[in-house]
């Protein structure tokens, strides 16, 4: 089942990301899809805030993978943030070892994660962002592929944005 939500500003997308953090558990990978400039990094910044990351979060476009120390009550000690936009092969993505690293008390947000979802670990949540009707509207579709996070819990946490 897909949960479809709408935000109306970049701040709302950040808030949504922050709320999503409240239902995550260690080991979960958020596979984020959606075109250039649609709001993936904005959502990652909100997620970071929700996980208690203090440093600045920007797209790791050149380093491909960034690691931020997190501080929250959910036992998540690290937020990994990947951006696959510049990757050119499945091997290159596999080399990042996201599926392995995330099992050390981390969660990972992967921009352009739909390029190579198979190597991003076993516990995935798919998030697809797209342009809405107005300039600042974004449609955010969320589908959980892991039993580690219940669909109902996501729907409840993000209920304020349902379309």
């Amino acid at each position, binding site marked *: 089942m897909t949960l479809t939500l709408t935000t109306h500003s970049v701040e709302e997308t950040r808030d949504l990301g922050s709320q999503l953090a409240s239902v995550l558990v260690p080991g979960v990978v958020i596979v984020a899809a959606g*075109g250039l400039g649609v709001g993936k990094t904005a959502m990652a910044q909100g997620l970071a805030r929700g996980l208690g990351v203090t440093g600045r979060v920007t797209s790791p476009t050149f380093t491909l993978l960034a690691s931020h120390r997190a501080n929250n009550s959910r036992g998540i000690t690290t937020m990994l943030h990947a951006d696959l*936009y510049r990757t*050119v*092969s*499945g*091997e290159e*993505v*596999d080399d990042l*070892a996201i*599926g*392995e*690293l995330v*099992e*050390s*008390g981390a969660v990972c947000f992967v921009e*352009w994660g*739909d*390029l*190579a*979802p*198979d*190597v991003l*670990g*076993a516990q995935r949540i798919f998030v697809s962002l797209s342009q809405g009707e107005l300039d600042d509207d974004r449609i955010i579709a969320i589908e959980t592929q892991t039993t580690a996070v219940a669909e109902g819990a996501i729907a409840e946490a993000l209920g304020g944005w349902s379309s």
Partner: protein
Amino acid sequence: MNILAIETATSVAAIAISSDEGTEEVEASRDMHHVETLVPCIQDHLRQRSWTMRDLDLIVVDIGPGLFTGLRVGVSAARSFAAALDCAIVGVSSLEVLARQRRQDEDCWSVIDARRGEVFAQHFLGDQAVSDPLVLTPEALGQLAGDQTVLIGDGAQRYRDVFASMGLVVNEDVVTPSPACAIELIKARQLTTGQDLRSIVPMYLRDPDAVANFHVLDRFKS
């Protein structure tokens, strides 16, 4: 003979330093921060003995199977030391080292956590491996292992409930490969003269076909 052993196949990184006086084993890190901790740990412990890298006669390194992020740190450190010092190097299997850490008369499976829902495993009788090293789900391993066997290693511990529900025994005492044991293994096998440096590469076991699904064009549409 002065030997340094490097262990990074699991979330616990460790080293052992051995001389004619005996062997000392030290844990370098427990939480996958192998990149930051391994080399400083080696330097510290050599310094404590007033040794430099040049005092080493042999480097022993665990080549896996194990965690990709750990092995690439340990194996590349071992290889670059060996190359720079022109020192002998020898690789050991994580599963064989583990098997040496249990009572040798037990029928056992060495089981290392491969993450992503799988384990690396190999069957041993006495000091003989009687299967290839495998990568499989804990459930599949449970089906393969007879009820006369004992499971050891961090993979056995992580999935202890799965194994228990299948009537299998997990030995909780043997968790991660011991680099001191790796040195013993190398001595017992008379491999202390070393191996070709080019043959020392991580053993990942996982099929690279699993990464074939890469959508090159998707990002350029819309």
